Structures are given as C-alpha cells and as structure tokens.
C-alpha cells in the first residue's frame, strides 16, 4: 500500500529547476534511500515530502492527502502527526535537556509524558544521559536523541537528511541499527544520504541528478 506518491513534481526557482517532473511512490513500511550529488534536488525533495515546502507543479500524496495544496497550518499538523524528522546537524533545542527535547515534541503533538520520553531515550541507549544538555552530549549522542525525538509520536514516516553525515563509524552503525529496528516495526523510512554504505542499508535507492530521477537501485541483499 502506497504511503507517499509524487506525481510529476517540479520545484522551480526562477530559471532553476531544483526538481524536474519527478514521480515516485513509496510503500508503507518501505526503507528508501535518496542519493545524488550536491544540487541534485535531494534537499528540495526532502523539504516537499517533509511538508516544509510546496512544489511549483505536480501532486504529493501523503497517506492519501495531497499536501501540495494544503495550507501552511495544515502542513504543520500533518508534519506533527505523520512525520518524524532527523537532520545531519541534529538541531536540538540547546537550552533543553535530552529528555526535554523529546518531551517538547510530545507537547506539540499531544501530551508530554516523561516516562515515555525516557523509554524512547532508553531505546536509543541514552537513558542515563536524559538530564544532559546538548552541549554535554557528543555528536553521536545528540543524533540518537534526535532519533528518539523523531520516533516518540509514532510517526508513519521517518524522514532523515544525512543522518550519519556528522557521525563516526560506531555511531553510524548505532543509528542504522535503530533504523533497521524501526523498519522491522513497520515504520516507513526515507533517508537522504551521500554515503553509499548508508544507502545500501535501505531496500531501494533513488539516485537524483539535475532534479530528475536518474536511476533506481533495488538492494538485493537487503535483510540478508
């Protein structure tokens, strides 16, 4: 069953076509990697899928709703209810502790629950660091807190932009293991990456070039 469908989507900035007539569908529970060189349109695609931007042309169906026509307020609601976002630069709120960073996401979604937030941190192996501020955490730990924050509201889609771009190998493996766990639980994952190893962890890799899908690679070894 399709969770996400892009139909002839373009994003044009003046003369520049950041995305050029892209069509794509992602099934519920699928793990997809998006690769491509800088300027290929990866971030633009991520922004559109993540309800942070709208396409110039085309339709984007997320769980059956055409988000390309929704108002800014509705996009916020959809992002809050259906999407968990993870970034290369972590983007934690720097005056909140690890557990508070997770709880603030709960607050905007529904109701803060410290116990549940602590359990989410435990899942990423950081329960004992719950009361630490971002400045007291390593890059890998910050990214794991961001994973906990992204999954706390049980989103249907985890959207990650270069999630391992700033991590060492050990932390990269931890994050990929977490993604594998989420995938097994049925969460849909879209991971934008430069790293072929990260892409190989996914079921399918979409390669973008000059705003178009250049090719699509199915990972035959997935799950083996």
């Amino acid at each position, binding site marked *: 069953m399709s969770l996400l469908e892009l139909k002839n989507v373009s994003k044009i900035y003046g003369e520049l076509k950041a995305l050029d007539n892209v069509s794509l569908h992602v099934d519920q529970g699928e793990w997809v990697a998006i690769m491509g060189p800088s300027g290929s349109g990866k*971030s633009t695609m991520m922004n559109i899928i*993540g309800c942070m*931007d709208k396409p110039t042309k085309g339709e984007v169906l997320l769980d059956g709703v055409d988000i390309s026509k929704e108002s800014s*307020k509705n996009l*916020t609601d959809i992002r*809050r209810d259906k999407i968990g976002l993870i970034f290369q630069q972590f983007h934690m709120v*720097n005056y*909140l502790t690890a557990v508070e960073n997770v709880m603030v*996401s709960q607050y*905007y979604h529904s109701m803060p629950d410290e116990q549940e937030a602590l359990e989410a941190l435990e899942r990423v192996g950081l329960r004992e660091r719950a009361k630490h501020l971002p400045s007291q955490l390593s890059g890998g730990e910050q990214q794991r807190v961001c994973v906990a924050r992204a999954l706390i509201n049980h989103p249907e889609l985890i959207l990650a932009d270069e999630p391992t771009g700033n991590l060492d190998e050990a932390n990269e493996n931890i994050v990929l293991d977490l993604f594998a766990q989420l995938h097994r639980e049925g969460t849909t994952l879209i991971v934008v990456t430069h790293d072929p190893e990260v892409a190989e962890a996914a079921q399918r890799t979409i390669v973008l070039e000059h705003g178009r899908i250049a090719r699509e690679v199915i990972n035959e070894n997935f799950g083996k």
Partner: protein
Amino acid sequence: MKILPLSLKNLARKPGRTAALVLLTAFLALAVFGGSVVILSLRTGLQSLEARLGADIILVPSEAQSKVSFQNMFLQGTTGAFYMDAAVADKALEVPGVEKAAPQTFLASLKADCCSIKIQVIGIDPAKDFTVQPWIARSLTGDMGDMDVVVGCRVEAGIGEIIRIYEQRCKVVAQLEPTGTGLDIAVYCNMHTMDTLLAAAEAKGVSHKIASGDDSVISAVYIKVKDGYDIDTVNTALTGKLRKVTAVRTRSMITGVSDSLAGVSRTVSAMTVVIWILAFIILLLAYTLVVRERTREFAVLRLIGASRGMLGRMALLESAMCGLGGGIAGTGLAAIGVFSFSALIESSLGLPYLFPGIGTILLLAAGTVLLSIAVSALASAFAARRLSRVQPGTALREGN
C-alpha cells in the same frame, strides 16, 4: 512540558540575555515609578499646604520680607522670627471684610533636646485660631494647656514626653499628621506658653523686642475674608490701615509654589518620557538581535510540530516575563530610592513634598509593573512575528 515551563527554561538557561532584557525593563520601570511618585508627592504636598494655610491673607511685619523668607518658613522649615505689636490683630478686625484674624507668634529654638536641628515654635491663640486648630483637633482631644505643646510629625518626641525649649519643660500632648511642608518640624503652643518661652529666650539673649518696647508681640496674623468681599480690596485696605505691616495673599504664595511644582513636574515628566523612549528603542533593538539568535531554535520547534501561533505566544510570554521581572525590580528599586531619600529629594526640590496614600502608591506600583509587561511585549511583538514566520527548512539550511 508546556509553553510556560519551556519559556522559563529558555530564560533560565540564557542568563546573560535574560538579565539584559530584565535590566532594560527595570530601568524603564524605575523611571516611571520614581518619577510618578515624585510628581504625585509634590501635588499632594501642594494640596496639603493649601489646606493648612487656610487663610486668605497673612499679615507680617514689613521687615519680615527682608529678614527671612516667609515662604520658606512654610515650605522648607526654615526657622526664623519677626515681631510686631500684638494689637495688629485687633486693628485688622476693624477693616471691613475681615471676618477672622488669628495671631501667631514665632520663636526659633536654639537647639531643643528633641531635635538635632533648630525647630520653629509657633504660638497660637486657640480661641481665635482657624488655621492650625482644626488640624490640632484631629490629634488632640481637649485643650492645649499651659506648657503643653503639639509637635509636627517629624519632631522626634512622643506623646507624653517632655521636651526642653530654652530650658523650659514642655509636655508633648499630640503629634500632627504629615503635611509635607516645613510645618512638620514645628512645635505649637498657646500664647501663655509662648510668653514664657519668649521670656526664657530673652534671658538667653534672643531678643523679641520691637521698636515700641512693647512686650506683647506677635509675628503674623492670619486673615479670613468675609464672603462677598473681594480679597484684593481687603488686602489693600489692610495695607493702608496698618503701618509697617505687609499683607501677603496666600493665593500668590500658593501660585508661586504651584508654578515651581509645574516646572519640576514638567522636567520629571520629560525625563521619564525620554528614558521611556530610549529604553523602548533599546528593547526593540535587543529583541531584534534575539530574532537573529533564535531563528534556528524556532525553526526546529516548527519542524517538530509547533504552529506559528504557539511560537508567537511563546516569544510574547518570554518577553512578558522579562517585563514582569524588570517591572518588579525597577519598581522595587525606585521605591527604595524615593522612600529612603525622601528628605533629600524634599530639600533639593524646596517644595512641599508629601507621599500620597498607600493605596495610591500600590496602585501606581501595579500600574508600573503592568506597563513594563506591556512595553516589553510590545517591543518584542515584531520579533515574535518574525520568529513565528520562520520558514523552517530555509532557516535550517541557512543555519547549516
């Protein structure tokens, strides 16, 4: 985790920024509350002076104008004395239009044991007096007997205590309410007591003799003009009839004070407005800098689900809390300043100065705090609007 605790955590974990915003608002509150209390105290002082003088005209010896500033004796508590024949009071009653004529006799103490400063002793005739007696009646039930004194609120002597004036033992029988004028450091007695004190002063070399050599002297006569008579006409008639006596219209004295008060009020108000505008501009700039600093944070909050309204409310709430903190701190500091240094302020201004009632002051303090909150929120409104309109994807990319 709700908006309030989230905002509190932001304020607490950015102590430098928070302290700067609170300090700016405190500066504003300090100026508004301090300036307002000074202006209100001057107005209350003037009202008190008007009520206390009670007379339409005051007769004093012509020499009084040059010997000592008659006005300053009332306004600043300057001690001094001048004398004229006691018969002036009776002669004044013969002038058409004069309804009442109340004599008063002044004597400046050398140094009374009640006071660290010289005090003004004022003898009144309770039977004729209509200016001081109503105020004494509020504090004293019964008559003021011989060697009894009623003291102003700033004379450090309790009821029942004995004070010595020119080595004469006087018993304090009442203490007057504050007036904010020089009358607060005066001591009142009846004319018999004053005669005793004058004699004691004479023995110490402080002469009250007048040219006629008459022992029966007074310093001033307070005149009440009958209804239907023109005060200026009566004033002229008194000057014509009484030799070596000057008739001073109390209205002109009050007008002089009122003019000075208006000048001081204008200056204080102008300073308050200038400080207000400066603080507001600085607050605006400070909040504009905050926008730059917090764009990434607000973009993150937008991405994890905060709506624009939520973020706008959060920014306003934080500035309102800074306003509350600054308002309380500034009002508190101003209160400490104006109440602790009231004597200094009073003597610097040289005008009647009387604090308004506690209710008015509390209301003023509450108003100042509310104003601080409102100004702080207003200054941050533009920043709040910009922060709430942050495009999260763009902001984070630029932040990278």
